[in-house]
């Protein structure tokens, strides 16, 4: 009973203090002499509602790019991580290739890579080589993010104590079966939060396709901004990105907490 009451009291204190700080902030910002100017330039209601349909329409390009990239990155990143984890000397070339791959694509700025691939490769005018900006944006994101994701996987695999694989092998599971049924399921569970961080980054980086001339959400916002000399469409775009990413982070927090509870909570 006392516990419940003190929890309610805690919530009340949190609500009151948050409201207090928020009100102070609002007064401080609102009373600033340049606030009306900033509000008109960045938070104009009319520009918000007129830009929303355009920006949302363009955002579908970001979503397509994000979803396609993610579908490709998840398995490719895992394959690279596995290639780097192979200890068999016969597979040394594969391991070396995977190492160079991750070093290179984690080290190169994505904006540079998309520029070189998107503008440079089509200029070679090789027969059969696509020149669509969307394609090259996808290639860039997959190359870069599968390098990041492979490192996340690898950290996850290496965080599983070797005794787990030994126990699986002792039961007569092959190396692959031990990986598949014992090491990976535990590793993947651990990498969900860092993986999701990378995917939030990926989602934001879909705006890079705009460099190649594709009118996605960010570019559409820039067009509207330049047409009217008002920055509100950029805020509209930011809001759309946040509407997608914030629930995603909360969901993962929930999943992780649930997972911990299931493993510690015991029998049912």
């Amino acid at each position, binding site marked *: 009973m006392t516990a419940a009451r003190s929890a309610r009291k805690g919530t009340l204190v949190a609500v009151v203090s948050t409201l207090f700080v928020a009100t102070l902030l609002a007064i401080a910002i609102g009373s600033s002499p340049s606030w009306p100017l900033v509000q008109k330039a960045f938070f104009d209601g009319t520009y918000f509602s007129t830009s929303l349909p355009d920006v949302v329409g363009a955002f579908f390009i970001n979503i397509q790019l994000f979803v396609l990239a993610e579908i490709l990155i998840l398995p490719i990143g895992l394959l690279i991580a596995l290639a780097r984890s192979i200890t068999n000397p016969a597979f040394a070339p594969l391991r070396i290739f995977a190492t160079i791959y991750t070093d290179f694509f984690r080290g190169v700025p994505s904006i540079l890579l998309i520029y070189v691939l998107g503008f440079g490769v089509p200029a070679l005018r090789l027969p059969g080589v696509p020149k669509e900006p969307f394609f090259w944006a996808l290639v860039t994101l997959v190359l870069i993010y599968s390098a990041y994701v492979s490192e996340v996987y690898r950290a996850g695999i290496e965080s599983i104590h070797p005794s787990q694989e030994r126990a*699986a092998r*002792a*039961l007569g599971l092959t190396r692959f079966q031990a990986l598949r049924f014992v090491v990976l399921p535990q590793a993947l569970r651990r990498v969900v939060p860092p993986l999701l961080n990378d995917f939030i980054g990926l989602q934001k980086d879909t705006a890079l396709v705009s460099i190649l001339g594709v009118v996605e959400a960010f570019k559409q916002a820039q067009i509207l901004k330049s047409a009217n000399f008002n920055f509100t469409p950029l805020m509209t775009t930011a809001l759309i990105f946040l509407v997608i990413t914030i629930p995603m982070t909360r969901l993962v927090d929930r999943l992780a907490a649930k997972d911990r509870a299931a493993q*510690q909570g*015991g029998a049912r």
Partner: protein
Amino acid sequence: MARVKAKRIAAAPVLELRGVSKRYGRALVLDKIDLTLAEHEVVCLIGASGSGKSTLLRCADLLEPIDAGSIALDGRAVSADDRDADETRRQLGIVFQGFSLFPHLTALENVALAPRVALGLTPTAAEKRARALLKQLGLAAKANAYPDSLSGGQQQRVAIARALATEPKVLLLDEITSALDPVLVADVLEALRALAKGGATMLIATHEMAFAADVADRICYLEGGRIIEQGSPEKIFGAPRDARTRAFLKRVRSVGASALR
């Protein structure tokens, strides 16, 4: 050599180690070990830490390649480098000191994994076998519990059930009670006694001398990677011939087994 307790021990050896040597770098951990294990026989390995008991078990389970000698299972020469070493390992069950249960699987799933994946049983058949084993080890009520929610003794019994799930010819046990709270040890030893009575063939490395005396058909005393002396529990504990065996047992009696870990 082997003393027949209340059961019949077949003449043909199930597991046979001949002149097995193992090095870690320059250290010779096993030095020409000869050891045979007949069907239904229970052999206990005793000796101080570092005497080579754990290494012997891991080599016997083909988890570590050996540097010299040979290992035969049911008369067939086997090696960790064999292409079918995985298959051989299914015929040998091993339980480690640290339980190494799979934390992402329930007790039932831990036990059913190898039958399903390594032996290729249907999920239903594997689960049926796992339930029977958990029941046999007194864990029927804990089938759906995750390892984290089980006591050490319960976890170790799940590990034993898991090792038995591939119906191994030999069960190898590596100091499985030494990480346990003393009050939980009894549970596990009781489970092993029941297995011994049921006719399981076991090679047990242990510090529990009373348990060894009770359950073993034969005791091997190891020191410096060699079998110094072996014989019936009565002989080893009652009238050890070798001075080193006597010295070890004297130390055990004076300081207690736990100090030797």
